[in-house]
């Protein structure tokens, strides 16, 4: 028993030290994720404010869609250089467009607009499903990733903007887009592949109105 006593003391001391100064902590993945995202940035508030005070007033800066379509017809390889915006190192570019088109097709997946007076071809398609990607965030040049210390904040902005497009703009478009109607639009396009993304342009709208 006497021999065991010092060992018992040592074990108790070690146990006490471990209790007072735990060598490691077990935390849930959810907790770690929350800590990384941080608490100071509120993407929902930011996106709502940005949408109304910065994005909507900037629609005048968008390029004339008719001119972009003329450039595509003339030389598709020059469109990015003339009208596009590239973010970082990428072969893709974004277009920020405004114009008026006539509804020539409408189904559950997409609304098709023609910019020609009597045209039947879809020049601009507006997909109606979930909105993914960064066309709205990166298409206008109003937001710069360098201003955000954590890329997750910047990505949350993209998700928030896409959510507003889905919940506000697309339902409005579906409400007014009857065949033959003329619709004024402003929106962004991502061109990742010039062979497939220019004809038609796939627009993520930020504003639509019946003319």
């Amino acid at each position, binding site marked *: 028993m006497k021999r065991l006593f010092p060992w018992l003391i040592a074990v108790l001391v070690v146990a006490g030290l471990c209790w007072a100064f735990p060598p490691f902590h077990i935390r849930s*993945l959810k907790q770690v*994720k929350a800590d990384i995202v941080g608490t100071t940035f509120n993407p929902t508030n930011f996106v709502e404010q940005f949408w109304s005070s910065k994005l909507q007033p900037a629609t005048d800066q968008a390029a004339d869609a008719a001119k972009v379509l003329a450039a595509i017809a003339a030389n598709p390889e020059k469109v990015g250089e003339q009208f596009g915006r590239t*973010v*970082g190192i990428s072969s893709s570019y974004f277009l920020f467009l405004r114009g008026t088109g006539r509804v020539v097709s409408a189904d559950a997946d997409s609304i098709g607009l023609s910019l020609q007076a009597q045209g039947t071809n879809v020049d601009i398609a507006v997909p109606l499903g*979930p909105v*993914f990607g960064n066309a709205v965030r990166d298409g206008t040049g109003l937001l710069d990733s360098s201003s955000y*210390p*954590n890329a*997750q904040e910047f990505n949350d902005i*993209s998700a928030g903007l896409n959510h507003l497009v889905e919940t506000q703009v697309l339902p409005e478009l579906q409400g007014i887009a009857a065949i033959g109607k003329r619709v004024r639009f402003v929106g962004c396009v991502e061109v990742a592949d010039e062979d497939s993304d220019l004809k038609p342009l796939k627009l993520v709208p930020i504003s639509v109105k019946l003319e």
Partner: protein
Amino acid sequence: MKLTLSQLIRAVALAMASILLVFSATAADQPAAKGKIAVVISTLNNPWFVVLAETAKARAIELGYDATIFDSQNDTAKEASHFENLIAGGYKAVLFNPTDADGSVANVLKAKAAGVPVFCIDREINSTNAATSQMLSDSYSGCVKLGQYFVKTVGKEGKYAELLGLVGDNNTWNRSKGFHSVVDRYPGLKMVAQQSADFDRAKGLEVLESILQKNPDIKAVFCGNDAMAMGAYQALVSAGKDKQVKVFGFDGADDVVKLIAEGKIAATGMQFPKVMAQKAAEYADEYLKGKRDFPQKIPVKVDLVTPENVSKYGDYGKKN
């Protein structure tokens, strides 16, 4: 004293060899004219990071610098020690692949205070006033594309698992969030397990083996990098489930690209380690020549690699 012709030739050859030896020894002892650049990499226990490190080193040497690679072994303490050594060692710039988005900030600030510019490659630090510039793969957008392809190939219903990378690294969550921003829109797709395998191949194998024991009916596994995807694929082969479960990775590692071509892995996101590493070395050179206005963050686009377009990719990039 008379010398024969052969003796004369031998004497001249000996003299020339001695001169060459002296010159080469002097050249080896002297750093290159432009100084030394450090390449500090989170881990070299992954071929993708080896490519990143070797490319950065090679480009720095091409630009006239001496370059040394430091392996942090995914340990912030080792990384801190590398920074102390390289600052004391007179390195002029650091091409840096951080171990931890928060934990690595102090090291970068220490270098900055010592007048040594730091250029982050691939992985982000959570600060916009520490590094001179950060060249970062757009992991989130890449995984949005992977998520869309996942839904297209796996379908809108079924069970799947996710292997996360290092939980302290922003890329882990950027990739996971990009993927979930798509997949979570389909309530029929149920994630039955989400566990970290630290971006490590052996851990990827172990973790998926344990997941398969509890969830033998998963249809797919999404892995936050290709090393874990390779480990997961090995686990599936061992369990005889490699035909049943689709594996999705991220990085564009050569072994995964080959397995995509063979129809064994479903898809990956091609990052461009060579492009990032070369650009970072070029930025360091420009900085040392006097340029100061660098963008803080430069996103680098990630391409989706699938069996349909895999022939266009290889050697850690896009084929010309």
